[in-house]
């Protein structure tokens, strides 16, 4: 499960640190104590920044780094598509073999395919993604967020 890509992101995380944002959330994985504080900043419909700080295992750290790399600069719709694809991959219990189309959407994040075989670690990989979703809903207003996904 420890692909080189994951270890790379773990050792050299992208965009780590807290910067200005429109909303901040704090998520905890109670079973292992992993924590993340995450902020989002939007410019119109564009993900202008995702900044974060936290402690956790290589999987949760690398996953936050990959999230930053993938989502910053994207339009919200596109970012949501990426998040959905990542969620699908992580919930696949190792049954999903990422194809070219998925690889195009998820880029480095396909390296997490192996993690989906380990139920205890799936939560680690998803921690930052759930935090991002939550922060985005807050930043754009729950109502607005719901409307968009409807």
């Amino acid at each position: 499960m420890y692909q080189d890509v994951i270890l790379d992101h773990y050792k050299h995380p992208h965009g780590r640190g807290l910067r200005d944002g429109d909303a901040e959330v704090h998520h905890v994985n109670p079973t292992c104590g992993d924590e993340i504080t995450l902020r989002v900043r939007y410019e119109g419909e564009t993900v202008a920044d995702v900044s974060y700080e936290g402690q956790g295992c290589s999987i949760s750290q690398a996953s936050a780094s990959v999230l930053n790399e993938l989502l910053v600069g994207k339009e919200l719709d596109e970012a949501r598509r990426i998040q959905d694809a990542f969620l699908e991959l992580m919930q696949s219990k190792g049954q999903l073999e990422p194809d070219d189309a998925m690889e195009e959407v998820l880029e480095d994040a396909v390296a997490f395919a192996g993690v989906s075989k380990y139920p205890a670690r799936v939560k680690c990989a998803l921690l930052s993604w759930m935090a991002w979703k939550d922060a985005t809903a807050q930043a754009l207003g729950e109502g607005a967020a719901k409307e968009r996904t409807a």
Partner: protein
Amino acid sequence: MTDSGRGLPGLLDTEAIRKDFPILDRAVHDGAKLVYLDNAATSQKPRQVLDALSGYYERHNANVHRGVHVLAEEATALYEGARDKVAAFINAPSRDEVVFTKNASESLNLVANMLGWADEPYRVERDTEIVITEMEHHSNIVPWQLLAQRTGAKLKWFGLTDDGRLDLSNIDEVITEKTKVVSFVQVSNILGTVNPVEEIVRRAQDVGALVVVDASQAAPHMALDVQALQADFVAFTGHKMCGPTGIGVLWGRKGLLDDLPPFLGGGEMIETVSMHSSTYAPAPHKFEAGTPPIAQAVGLGAAVDYLSAIGMDRVQAHEHALTEYAVGRLREVPDLRIIGPVTGENRGATISFTLGDIHPHDVGQVLDEQGIAVRVGHHCARPVCLRYGIPATTRASFYLYSSPAEVDALVDGLEQVRNFFG
């Protein structure tokens, strides 16, 4: 011994089924063949369940939920997989509505305690009312008596008709606007009566009371569909449905399980703990403090698989045919009085009776000497004995492996009892 029961329609192939249950081969008292008619107390376990238990311990045993090692992941998958199986078995809308307890008694106490500590609008307190019935098992009486004593709420109940049914004639006086909770048994463990759930649920819903169904004697014997029941909570127990001892189930509506406070506190049921305060995990784990009965859940999962493979409708049809036959044959026995419905209609495969003034202890003992295992006493439903003015009953109860020949053995055995004490 007659074998007039052989050709009954709907019977299962008990000869094949009995091969799955090692204990049914046992001889007792120097050679008498075991005739096990004490299934309402506990059922026997098929080989498939015993294999699931030893398989768990021999290959996968670990504590659940918090491990990253292989065994912990396998044990967790097996334990949570058992929850999926039970959820499917009772047609639960969500697996998260299935709480594992140690037995039905704990399930019922859990509900009573949740309601005692709940916030409005669920809180049971002074000036509110709890409704049960006179045919409840002690496990669905005492928790409510304790709750009433401890909160000042009033305990009310439905009485029984002479033919062993709930007397619902005064339903509007018993269940009122003050009623917070109505808890009743789906199938009586002493009378065999199958109760009219729908009528009670409708009235309870009219006044906004929660409904708890004690399905301990229903889940083993018929298809249980918690959505069709429309209750808020349903309790049952593993050991009566081919599963191991040490495991019970509480099904509850998701919204209620989310809103209601925890009962037992400890490991597994928390989200985060500090010395100053704690938050709790979402249901079902909120209600599962400590290391759960892991192997027992796995065993119950195997039991549910076993029963489902045969089909609960077929189990019910088998027992119905057998009950019709048994009621008919028992009514031929002189001085025998059935306590409970005297026909096969709306009744389960549990038949209580008295035999002249021969004490049930003596009936049971003389039957036992012939290898026939029945239960005698008040069957944890003493108010029913009081209601019918008897100290105790003899109870024969059947299951999917019971055969007409065993009914015949019982009837012959009773003949011997009468000769002996006549």
